Every structure is written in C-alpha cells, then in structure tokens.
C-alpha cells in the first residue's frame, strides 16, 4: 500500500518536470554530421561527377534499391549514364557509402523526404547530384588515380611516378 502511494507521488512529481518532447516542425533535433539520411552524389573540386560507375554500391546494397548504367565520355572518363535510387526501398544502412571507392555516394543528415506519391520517392541522377563535394572536400579521383584519361596520361597523377619501362628493370 505504501509503495503504491510512493509511486503515485513519484509519477505526480513529473508534473513539474520539463517535457522531453521536441516540438518537431518548429524545433528540430540535432543530427550529427555523419547521420545516415538522404543519399546524394557529390562532385569533385573541378565540378565533375565523382561517380565512376563501378557498380559497387549497387552490388553491396542489401535491398537492391540502387540502379545505374556506366558509360564513358570521349576522354575515356567513366560516369553513370543514369543513376537511380528507390528511396521507398532504401534502408539507409550506409553500405553504399562504405563501398564507394571515389567518395561519390554519401549519406546526409536529412530525413524530410516524405511524398504523397510513391513514384516520387525514386530519385534520378539529377535529384541526387549536388554541386558540392560533401564530406570529403578536395578529393578528385582522376587526379590521384593512375588510370589514363583524356588530358592526363599514366604517371601524371598527384604523387605518382612515371611508369617504369619493364624492359629496363633488370634483375
């Protein structure tokens, strides 16, 4: 009986506590920068698409919500012809970001993407591409990778020695 009265008093005292509720549309909860929300495709510092269409994100995606088609421009630079994420399937696990070798695909702290029509949750490349570099500024895959594209031959990347002539390497 005493314990009942005690618990009644404990509950009653909550009347004078400030509610922990965050009044959502007016107030918003703090989201850490690495919060896994809406997925974006970032660009390199020169404004080119970072995505090289390697399909790793689509392969690792546990719910298969990513679809893309890789293609090449006239300089031999790979980019996705289309890039489609079905956010009605996406579980925001972040595996695609982990898998991406070029920091192209990134998750952002944004969750306000409700739609009245289900098809509107399918984001195309124009919806995904942002103009910035996202979480990894200053990174440009083609400038540090040894792959040759138009305007940059082998051995011309940053911190890359010219390729060795194999016939000159003597035992």
């Amino acid at each position: 009986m005493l314990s009942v009265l005690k618990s009644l008093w404990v509950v009653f005292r909550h009347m004078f506590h400030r509610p922990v509720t965050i009044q959502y549309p007016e107030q918003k909860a703090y989201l850490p920068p690495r919060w896994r929300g809406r997925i974006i495709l970032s660009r390199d510092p020169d404004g080119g698409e970072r995505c090289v269409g390697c399909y790793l994100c689509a392969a690792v995606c546990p719910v298969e919500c990513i679809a893309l088609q890789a293609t090449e421009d006239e300089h031999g630079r790979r980019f996705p012809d289309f890039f489609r994420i079905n956010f009605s399937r996406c579980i925001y696990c972040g595996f695609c970001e982990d898998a991406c070798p070029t920091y192209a695909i990134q998750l952002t702290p944004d969750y306000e993407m409700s739609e009245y029509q289900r098809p509107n949750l399918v984001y195309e490349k124009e919806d995904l591409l942002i103009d910035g570099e996202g979480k990894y500024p200053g990174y440009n895959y083609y400038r540090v990778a040894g792959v040759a594209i138009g305007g940059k031959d082998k051995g011309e990347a940053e911190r890359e020695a010219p390729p060795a002539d194999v016939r000159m390497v003597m035992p």
Partner: protein
Amino acid sequence: MTEPLRSIAVILLVLFGLLTVAALLVWLERRLLGRWQERYGPNRLGPFGLFQTVADTIKLLTKEDWVPPFADKPVFVIAPAVIMVTVLMAFAIVPFAPGLQVVDLNIGVLFFLGMSSLGVYSVVLAGWSSDNKYALIGSLRAAAQMLAYEVFMGLSLMGVVILAGSFSLVRIVDAQRGLWFCVPQILGLIVFANAGLAETRRLPFDLPEAESEIVAGYHSEYSGMKFGMFFIGEYLGVTLISAMVVTLFFGGWRGPWLPPVVWFALKTFVLVCGFILLRATLPRPRFDQLMAYGWTVMLPLALVNLVVTGAIVLARG
C-alpha cells in the same frame, strides 16, 4: 417557473454539462498522462489542444459503423446505449448544489448502486453479442469483477448511511455540515474508491479490456460511434464515481467563500485527476490477484467498517 419546466431545464443542463465534461475528460486525461510521462500530449489543435476532442468526435462519427455479420445485431446495437443510459440515469440523484439536482430520491444511494449494477449488462451483452472469443473473455471478466466489487461497494456505503440516517443524498450532504465523512468513514472511503475504480473498469482494474492480452476485451468488435459510446460511458463513469465520492465523503457542495457548484466541480475535478494519476502509475494486476484483492482485503475491510460504525452509533445511542 413551473415545476415540470424547471425539472426539464435542470435535466437538460445536467445532460449537456455532463456530455461536455466527458468529452473534455478525454483531452484532460491525454494531457495529464502526457505530462506525467514527460510529454506534452495533444497540444496542436486549438488553445492547449482543446479542439482535439472535436476532431476525435468527428473522426468517430464519420468512421464506418460496422456491425459484424456474425454478431447478434439487436443486442450488439443496444449494448453501448445501455452503459450511457445507466450512467446518465445515476447522475439524476447527484446533488450538484442546493436545488440543482434532477430528483431527490429518498433511496438515492440505492438508486446509484442499482444503476451502476445495470451498467454491467452493457459490458456483458456487448461481449456476448460480438461472438468473438476475446470479447467474451472480456465480458466474463467484467461480470466476475463487477460481482465481486459490487458486494462491498454497497457495504462500504452503509457506514455513511448509518451516520447520516438516510439514503437520500441531500440528507447525506446535510449530515456532513460539521465534519466530512472522509474522516470517520476513512475505511469506507478507501473501499468505495477501490470499488468505484473497478466499477468503471479503469486501470488498474481494466482487465475486461486488457489490450495486452485480449485485444480490446468486450468492445473488440465495436467501431465508430458505438465504440465512442463505450468511451464516453467510461469517462462519464469516472465523473460519476468522483461525484459520488465527493457527495458521500467530501461534503458534496459544501465549502467556504465559493459558490456551491464551484466547490462541487472543484472537488470532482481533483478526484478525476486522482483517477487519471492512478491510471498513469499502477500496472494491471493478474486476474486472480484482482479477485483475491477484492474478496480477501476489500470485503473484510468493508465489513469491519460497517460493524464498527454500527457499534459506535449504537453505543452513542
């Protein structure tokens, strides 16, 4: 004003007042539960979320009013009306203020007990006519619970009746001029509050509709405004029990400075908040615990109270 006209005016006033109060109680309960759980509760619609009740009512009224094809249709339809009617009838004898009472029956307490007993039929018939096992279990629980708690609900009030020397609620309020009955009848108050809680099927005595075990108990199959009737009936029941506790134990409308109606409303409000606090705090007991609590603790308490009160009144002559 002529007597019948005055009666009709009082009846309409009480009826509209009560239905408004019951509707507002839905909001009050949600707000208070929210505050006690460190939330806000409904606070969007209108000032302090007061119009939430209106929205809920519109929702209930526009919902599909579904009668299951396997249900016993006439009984299914009547059952929710029974609870409203019995609870509202019981309010007829509550003296809200001197003169503000529908009827001053000389058997007022008995009338209240009778009406609250009839309320059980609503629950039992609802569960039976639904032809659903969960509803049936719920209504059987309700029947057993009511049977157990009705016994000492009546007994707990006999102490008050002995002290006041009357079943009439006006006389009982008059008898509390010097000292409220909550002091000499503290045992009776405790027993009656417990029985009243069980009578209204509120937490912690809401086993007939324990949603964690039997869906929603006796009103599992109900929807729309029929469910709304059970809902409003429950809140009216809370108001009724609080009003009866105030009348029988806390001096009714008696109090200094403020007008009687205000005192009555104030006391009832505090008790209703107490009911909600109980709901916010206590978990639901097991059914055998509930029955054991009723028969082995509350019933002996009520009997002891009755015997002691009777003995003291007799000894004083």
